C-alpha cells in the first residue's frame, strides 16, 4: 500500500486540477469515482449512490453518516430532498452500506495547519487536495463536525441531478421538451398538469446520463433553512428506533465481556470452570485481552463473565496520576511538535507591560455514551455481517475483515442509530470483539453488550493536558500571549487504529483552539508538545478545543483582569481587529445577556469565545450563590454557522454541546491506578443532571459564507465561561478541572 505521504503528494497535483472544475466536480463525484454500492432488488432503481427509487417505499434517500443525536440524517436528507422536490412527509431515509462512495470529502482538510478563518486560496486548495486522502482510504467518517460542510453542495447536486434524470425520462415518455416540465412533491408535472410519480419514471431515468444542473438559489428553498420535524423523532419518542443494542436476529445469543482493566495488557490465564457450569451459559471465548461469555440473555452473560477467574497481566503505564501528569509535563522539556502561530516577538515586552503567568491542568475524560458499547456479529458462509452503531463503517469493515481473516468484500456492516457517539463510536474495538465472539460460534448471530463498568473502564479517553500561559497587557490591551501545551496525541493514536499508521508532522489537533483563536495580539505564539504516553486516548467532542478552549479563555480572562478591563469588552476589541464574525457573536451575547460589566451581590457572570470547526461561538454564563453553593442560573450562546440549514437542530446542538461541556467542567474526571481506571459507573462519573442545567438561550448568526460545524463548537466555551463566572462571583480563579474539586455546586 502506498504511504499516506506519497498519496498526499500525488493528490496535491490531482486536487489542484480538480478545483478548477468547480461545481461540475460535484456531479462527477456523485456519479463517477466510486461504484454505486446500492444493490437494488427487482423493480427498484438507483439514480446515484444517494437516491434509490423502490416499488414498495417510493423514493428512499441515503444519508451515510452516523446519526448519534446530532440530526445529521434529517438535514442530509433535506439537502437531497430540496433539489429533488420531495414532500417532507414522504421522505424516507436509510444509512446504507459501508462504501467508498460515501467517503468524507472534508475531514482530512482539517489536518492542514492553518487558522481556518483566514485561510488563503492556496491553503484552500491544499485542503481540497488532502480531501482525496479520504477517498483513497475510503474514509467514510462522521466526525470533526464535517457532515454539513461535506454534504452541503454534494447532496444538493445529487438531488438535482437525479431530478433532471427523472425529468429527462418524463420528456421522452411525453414527447415534450424537458424545459416544459416541472417537479413537485415527488412527481414530474407535464405541461397539461398531469403528475407522473418518480417511481414510474425511475427505470428509464437510470439509463440516462447525468444532466447539467444549476443549484437553486437560497431564496427558492422550501425545506432548508427552516426547522423540519426530524426523521428520527417519532421512533425515538416511542421506543421503536433501533439502536445497536436493540438488534434482534433469528437464533441470536447474548454475550458480555470482561477485558483486562490494566489497559492494553493481556491475560496470564483464566479459569472458566464455574462460569461454564452456570445454567444458560453457552460458551466462554478467549479475546486475548480478556474473555466473553455467550449465554441465553445479557444479564446472565454479565454474571458469568464475573465468575470467570482471570489472571491479568500488568500494564506498562505510570502507576498513578502523579506519574501520568509528570509524564505529560516532561513533554515541555522536549522540542515542540508544532509552533503554528508565531506573530511578533513574545520575548520582547513593551514598556510598562504587566506580565501575567499561569499554569492550567485538565483531567482525562470518558465519553460515557448513554448506550454502552455493543455490537452484533454473524459469521456464516457469506462471510461476516456486523450490526452496530459506528462513525466509521468502511474502517470497521476493513479492520474486522482482518480480524476474521476475510476479504473486505465479504464483510457487511449495518449501521444503526447510536445512543450517543461524541467520538467513542469512531473506534473499532466493540466491533472487533463481537467479530471474535462470532468466530467462535459460526452460524450463530451474537450480540456482545458491555456492562457500564466495562464501558467506562475501557474507553479511549480525552487526554489530560497541561498549559503554561504567559502574557502581557498594556493600556488595557493584550500585547503578548505565549501559550504552551503538553498533551499526548489522540490524533496519532486514533489515526493509527484507523489506518495502521498516522500522519506525521505538526499535530494541529493538539493546539486547535489556541493557534487559531481569532484575536489580534501583536506578539502571539503557540507551541504544542506531545507527551509520551500509551494510555488509550481518542477523539472526544470538540477534541483539542475541549481543553484548549478552557486554557485560552480562562487566561484571556486573567489578562483582562490584569488590564483592569471588562472581560467582554477586552475580547470584543481584540476580535474586532482580527475577524468580524468573531466580534459579531461576542456582540450578540453581550446584547442577549444584557451584559453591563457589573452584577448584583450574589450573582456572577463569565464569558468565553471559542472558534472551532470553523464556527465562532460566544457564551455567557450566570451563576448565583445559594448559601455558599454555586448554582448555574442562565446561559446565552451565539454562534455563526454560515448557513443555518435547520435552526431547530442547530439550537439543540448548541444547547447539548454546552451541557456536555458543563458536565465535564463541573464533575467529570477519569483517574488511573496501575493503568486501570478507578471510576466504574455513573455514581463515580456523574454527568450533569436535569435540575442542574441552566436556562439557555441560543442565537444563530449567518454572517459567514461557508457552512460550518455545529455538533462540537458548543462545547469548548462551557468550561471557561463557567470558571470565569465563578471568578466574577467569588474572586477565586480556578485553573484545574473539574471545578467541583475547588467549589461546591448546588445539587
Amino acid at each position, binding site marked *: 500500500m502506498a504511504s499516506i505521504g506519497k498519496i498526499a503528494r500525488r493528490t496535491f497535483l490531482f486536487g489542484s486540477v480538480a478545483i478548477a472544475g468547480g461545481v461540475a466536480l460535484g456531479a462527477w463525484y456523485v456519479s463517477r469515482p466510486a461504484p454505486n454500492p446500492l444493490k437494488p432488488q427487482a423493480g427498484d432503481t438507483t439514480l446515484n449512490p444517494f437516491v434509490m427509487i423502490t416499488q414498495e417505499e417510493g423514493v428512499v434517500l441515503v444519508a451515510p453518516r452516523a446519526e*448519534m*443525536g*446530532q*440530526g445529521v440524517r434529517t438535514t442530509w436528507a433535506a439537502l437531497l430532498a430540496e433539489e429533488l422536490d420531495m414532500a417532507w412527509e414522504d421522505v424516507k431515509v436509510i444509512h446504507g452500506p459501508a462504501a467508498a462512495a460515501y467517503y468524507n470529502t472534508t475531514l482530512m482538510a482539517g489536518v492542514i495547519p492553518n487558522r481556518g478563518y483566514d485561510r488563503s486560496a492556496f491553503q484552500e486548495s491544499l485542503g481540497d487536495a488532502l480531501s482525496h486522502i479520504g477517498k483513497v482510504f475510503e474514509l467514510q467518517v462522521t466526525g470533526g463536525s464535517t457532515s454539513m460542510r461535506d454534504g452541503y453542495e454534494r447532496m444538493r447536486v445529487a438531488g438535482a441531478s437525479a431530478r433532471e434524470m427523472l425529468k429527462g425520462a418524463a420528456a421522452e415518455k411525453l414527447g415534450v421538451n424537458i424545459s416544459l416540465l416541472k417537479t413537485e412533491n415527488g412527481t414530474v408535472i407535464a405541461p397539461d398538469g398531469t403528475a407522473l410519480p418518480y417511481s414510474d419514471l425511475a427505470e428509464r431515468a437510470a439509463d440516462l446520463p447525468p444532466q447539467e444542473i444549476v443549484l437553486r438559489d437560497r431564496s427558492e428553498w422550501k425545506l432548508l433553512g427552516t*426547522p423540519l*420535524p*426530524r426523521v*428520527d*423523532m*417519532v*421512533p*425515538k*419518542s*416511542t*421506543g*421503536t*428506533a*433501533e*439502536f445497536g*443494542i*436493540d438488534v*434482534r436476529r433469528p437464533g441470536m445469543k*447474548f454475550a458480555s465481556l470482561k477485558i483486562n482493566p490494566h489497559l492494553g495488557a493481556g491475560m496470564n490465564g483464566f479459569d472458566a470452570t464455574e462460569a461454564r457450569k452456570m*445454567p*444458560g451459559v453457552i460458551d466462554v471465548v478467549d479475546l486475548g485481552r480478556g474473555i466473553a461469555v455467550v449465554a*441465553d*440473555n*445479557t*444479564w*446472565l452473560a454479565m454474571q458469568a463473565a464475573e465468575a470467570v477467574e482471570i489472571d491479568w497481566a500488568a500494564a506498562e503505564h505510570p502507576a498513578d496520576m502523579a506519574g501520568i501528569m509528570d509524564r505529560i509535563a516532561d513533554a515541555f522539556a522536549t522540542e515542540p511538535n508544532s509552533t503554528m502561530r508565531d506573530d511578533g516577538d513574545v520575548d520582547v515586552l513593551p514598556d510598562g507591560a504587566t506580565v501575567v503567568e499561569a499554569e492550567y491542568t485538565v483531567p482525562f475524560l470518558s465519553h*460515557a*455514551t*448513554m*448506550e*454502552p458499547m455493543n455490537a452484533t456479529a454473524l459469521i456464516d458462509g457469506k462471510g461476516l455481517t456486523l450490526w452496530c452503531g459506528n462513525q466509521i463503517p468502511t474502517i470497521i469493515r476493513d479492520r474486522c475483515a482482518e480480524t476474521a481473516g476475510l476479504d473486505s468484500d465479504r464483510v457487511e456492516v449495518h449501521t444503526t*442509530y*447510536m*445512543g*450517543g457517539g*461524541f467520538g467513542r463510536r469512531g473506534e473499532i474495538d466493540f466491533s472487533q470483539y463481537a467479530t471474535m465472539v462470532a468466530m467462535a460460534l459460526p452460524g450463530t448471530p451474537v450480540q456482545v*453488550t458491555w*456492562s*457500564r463498568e466495562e464501558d467506562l473502564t475501557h474507553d479511549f479517553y480525552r487526554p489530560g493536558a497541561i498549559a503554561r500561559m504567559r502574557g502581557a497587557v498594556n493600556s488595557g490591551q493584550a500585547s503578548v500571549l505565549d501559550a504552551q501545551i503538553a498533551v499526548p496525541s489522540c490524533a496519532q493514536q486514533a489515526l493509527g487504529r484507523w489506518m495502521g499508521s498516522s500522519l506525521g508532522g505538526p499535530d494541529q489537533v493538539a493546539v486547535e483552539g489556541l493557534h487559531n483563536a481569532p484575536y489580534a495580539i501583536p506578539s502571539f505564539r503557540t507551541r504544542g508538545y506531545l507527551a509520551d504516553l500509551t494510555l488509550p486516548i481518542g477523539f472526544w467532542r470538540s477534541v483539542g478545543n475541549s481543553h484548549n478552549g478552557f486554557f485560552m479563555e480562562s487566561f484571556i480572562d486573567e489578562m483582562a483582569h490584569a488590564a483592569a478591563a471588562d472581560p467582554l469588552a477586552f475580547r470584543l476589541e481584540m476580535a474586532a481587529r482580527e475577524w468580524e464574525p468573531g466580534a459579531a457573536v461576542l456582540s450578540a451575547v453581550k446584547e442577549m445577556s444584557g451584559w453591563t460589566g457589573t452584577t448584583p451581590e450574589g450573582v456572577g457572570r463569565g464569558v468565553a469565545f471559542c472558534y472551532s470547526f470553523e464556527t465562532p461561538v460566544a457564551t455567557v454564563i450566570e451563576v448565583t450563590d445559594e448559601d455558599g453553593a454555586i448554582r448555574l442560573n442562565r446561559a446565552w450562546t451565539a454562534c455563526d454557522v454560515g448557513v443555518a440549514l435547520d435552526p*431547530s437542530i442547530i439550537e*439543540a446542538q448548541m*444547547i*447539548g454541546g*454546552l451541557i*456536555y461541556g458543563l*458536565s465535564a467542567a463541573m464533575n467529570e474526571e477519569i483517574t488511573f491506578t496501575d493503568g486501570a481506571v478507578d471510576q466504574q*459507573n*455513573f*455514581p463515580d462519573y456523574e*454527568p*450533569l*443532571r*436535569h*435540575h442542574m*442545567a441552566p436556562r*439557555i438561550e441560543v442565537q444563530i448568526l449567518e454572517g459567514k459564507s461557508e457552512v460550518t460545524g455545529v455538533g462540537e463548537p458548543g462545547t469548548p466555551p462551557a468550561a471557561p465561561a463557567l470558571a470565569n463566572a465563578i471568578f466574577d462571583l467569588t474572586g477565586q480563579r480556578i485553573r484545574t478541572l473539574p471545578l467541583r474539586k475547588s467549589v461546591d455546586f448546588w445539587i
Partner: protein
Amino acid sequence: MATEISVNGTTHSVDLPEDVPLLWVLRDALDLTGTKYGCGVAACGACTVHIDGEAVRSCQVSLADVWGDITTIEGVGTPDALSVLQQAWVDHQVAQCGYCQSGQIMQAAALLAEIPAPTDDDIDQAMQGNLCRCGTYPRIRAAIHSAAKTMEG
C-alpha cells in the same frame, strides 16, 4: 419454572431464573427493546417502566419481585397513535440520540399522573434521576409543561 407477568395488557409466561432483572426479561426474552440498559445500578433512569402506574427502575426489580402490571414505552403509544406526552416530545423535537428518552417519557408520565400541572421545581425533583448525555433537559421541561397544558384540556 415459568413466571407469569403482565406487560402492556398481555400476560407472558417467562421461563427464566427468578433473579433475572425485569429489564433483561423485557429486552432479551420478550424483545421489548424500547426499555434501555444504561447502568444496571439505578443511577441513570434509562430502564424506567411503570408497575401499577409507579415509575420504577427495571434493572432493580427481579422477575420474582414484580408486584403488579407492567407498562413499558411500547404500551404508552405507538408511532401511529402517539400519547399526548409523546406528541409533546415530537412537537418540541426533544430527542437527540434518543437512547434515554423512553425512560424520560416513562418518568414524565408518572409525574403527570401524580401532579397534573407540575412546576419547574416539581419537574426538577421528578426528573433528576434520569440522565441525558445529549443535553435535552431544556426541551424535556418544555414538553412536560406543554403536555400538562394539553391534558388539562
